[in-house]
């Protein structure tokens, strides 16, 4: 029996691993005196895979039996390479509790192949969440995947039990989606997404009036975009993303550089295709600028442009496109402007503002504050540092920043998504979110 579960676990975790989301953040759920678990709001990565991605949740499919035939998906109907298995509700519940009590995980991220129809599949996911919450007093994190086409009643039930719901857009254009997933269209994705959004809004409003009103996916909604499987440009991807943040009010968009496993002609062939990990990294940086740094879409990816600059990060690229806006005076610029300087992050900008209140910030102070001088030196003025190159020759600044590195050579070390938003008590950002801030700085 045990052996059987371990084999299922191997298969269904392997099938779920291409979903980039692992966040356990955003929703604060307190434990009761007799319950087990909580979520702290900041999220915790309990381990990291050898590819450097955060392991925060037990991320598995309920079943990898699927009636759909999406070319980018390993569980597609026509793929004869995989063994088809399904957990029982009890098995997923037991695994979650066994792992949670040992402090291996923050909770469960449950998705599934669509083994019969949307509602039958969603019922199983909801049954797992319900058993965890009601039979085991589980107050850890639960992220449920919304199956496109699921009924509003089931979505409501899911939202009441889960901390986060997500429905994956997967392919960044509808034309692209239809070319690789014949049974899917955008209406199936955006319908449930809007239902969840309205549910979240409504619950928020209710809870403002009455703190005991039921929660609804308090950690918000997220989605994933697969890049590289279909030919959309970065500008197209970010246009879509900008709309997802402003209209669908998503908390997070994840990017997943498509990994070709072969066996399907509708997507690139692994023989000639390399996973666009560098591009994925640049998209995360651009995403960070949109979400956290107050950049507008057109500033990050100008209208009519194709892909992001692969030599320099999007913020540096912006500064090089608008050299007339720089250099910026460390001792005078408002915080919003400091944050726009390449090499400065949100935290280092705040530190500068705080130091300014007591005196003049000099060049030597900046390094200790966490400023990346290699980039920032061209864009910042202090009384003892006055760069002139950006005003005379932005091309030379680019040369200096790119250095000897060949154009387009991959810098993979930071491609992983920041799994955590927020900070540990006292405002110390976690190592992981710090890495992402640096990535965007």
């Amino acid at each position, binding site marked *: 029996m045990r052996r059987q579960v*371990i084999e299922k*676990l*191997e*298969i269904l*975790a*392997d099938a*779920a691993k291409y979903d980039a989301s692992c966040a356990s953040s955003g929703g604060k759920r*307190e*434990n009761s*005196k*007799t*319950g*087990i*678990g*909580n979520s702290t709001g900041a999220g*915790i*990565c*309990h*381990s*990291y*895979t*050898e*590819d*450097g*991605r955060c*392991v925060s949740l*037990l991320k598995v499919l309920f079943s990898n039996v699927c009636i759909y035939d999406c070319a980018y998906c390993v569980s597609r109907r026509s793929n004869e390479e995989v063994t088809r298995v399904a957990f029982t509700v009890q098995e997923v519940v037991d695994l979650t509790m*066994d*792992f949670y*009590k*040992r*402090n*291996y995980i923050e909770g469960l991220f449950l998705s599934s192949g669509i083994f019969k129809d949307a509602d039958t599949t969603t019922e199983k996911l909801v049954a797992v969440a319900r058993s965890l919450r009601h039979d085991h007093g589980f107050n850890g994190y639960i992220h449920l995947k919304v199956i496109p086409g699921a009924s509003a009643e089931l979505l409501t039930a899911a939202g009441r039990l889960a901390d986060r719901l997500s429905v994956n857009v997967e392919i960044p254009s509808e034309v692209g989606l239809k070319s690789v997933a014949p049974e899917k269209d955008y209406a199936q994705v955006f319908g449930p997404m809007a239902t969840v959004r309205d549910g979240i809004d409504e619950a928020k409003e209710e809870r403002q009036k009455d703190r005991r009103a039921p929660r609804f996916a308090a950690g918000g909604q997220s989605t994933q975009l697969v890049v590289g499987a279909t030919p959309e440009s970065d500008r197209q991807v970010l246009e879509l993303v900008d709309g997802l943040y402003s209209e669908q009010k998503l908390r997070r968009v994840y990017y997943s550089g498509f*990994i070709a496993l072969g066996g399907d002609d509708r997507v690139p062939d692994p023989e000639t295709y390399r*996973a666009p*990990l560098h591009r994925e990294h640049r998209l995360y940086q651009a995403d960070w600028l949109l979400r956290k740094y107050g950049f507008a879409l057109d500033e990050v990816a100008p209208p009519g442009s194709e892909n992001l600059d692969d030599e320099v990060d999007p913020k540096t690229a912006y500064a090089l496109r608008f050299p007339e806006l720089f250099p910026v005076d460390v001792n005078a610029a408002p915080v919003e402007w400091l944050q726009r300087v390449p090499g400065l992050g949100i935290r280092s900008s705040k*530190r500068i503002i*705080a*130091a300014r*209140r*007591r*005196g003049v*910030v*000099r060049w030597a*102070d900046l390094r*200790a*504050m966490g400023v990346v001088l290699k980039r920032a030196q061209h864009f910042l003025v202090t009384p003892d540092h006055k760069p002139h190159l950006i005003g005379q020759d932005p091309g030379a600044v680019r040369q200096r920043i790119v250095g000897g590195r060949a154009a387009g050579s991959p810098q*993979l*070390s*930071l*491609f*992983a998504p920041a799994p955590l938003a927020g900070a*540990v*008590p*006292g*405002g*110390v950002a*976690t*190592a992981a979110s710090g*890495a992402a801030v640096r990535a965007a700085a």
Partner: protein
Amino acid sequence: MAAALPVDATLAVETDGSFPGLLSAYAAAYRHGALPASVGRLDEPAPGALFGQTLPVASDAALAGRVERGLERVKPGLVGRLHRAFLSERPGMEVTVLRLVDAAQAGGAVAAEDWTFEPARVVAQWSGRVGREAHRMEAFVRFERHTDDESGAERWAAVARPEYHVLPLLTEHFAARYPTMAWRIVDARRRLALVHTPEPDRQPGEPATVIVPADTLDLPEAAPDEAAAQAMWRAYFQAVTIPERRNLRLHLRHVPKRYWPYLTEKQTGDQA
């Protein structure tokens, strides 16, 4: 607010080594009119004590509480930051903490946030490191289930080797998360254990979590299903890696090797 105190190079204070003791020492220094150049322990006479003046300070909870409340009024969160920096156990940190307490008292919140002011920066940086280590412990601690053959009682035990003395910072997190479990976390470096007793097994008035010398504890055998649960976790960990994306440099940055001996997923499981 009064002006900042001068540092008296010949003054040393001695405390009981606790954080409230250090805050009590600030109150004493304030009354004395100068900050000490060194902070020693009451139970370990300092070698240089012959030359200067030594001020012995008893830990006074009420007094420390007043200093804490004063600091929290100046800058919410500052006490936590000072406490974390203190737990770094770095030589000289006590004096740095006292200097920042004094600067906050005299100059308000701006002094505490000014990274061009050395004590503010040092405390913020060490508080960050200690906080990060505590956060890593919240992530990397791995409990094993142990069961007593006779009573059937369950014990959940973890061993870790944190760089800094973070056990006091873990209390709240784990007590809120696992209130009904009898768990303990052993700091193998300091031979200390954070021990939690669930409510029904506690004497009235007994605190839920205490820090005790690890050598005083005993532990029943690992539960019969423990090895299977660990094997399950290792299988999961293997399955979620994407070989095409393997990036050991990034992996090591997130999980430095010093944590590996205590991580279930990094063991071979041969004993299972």
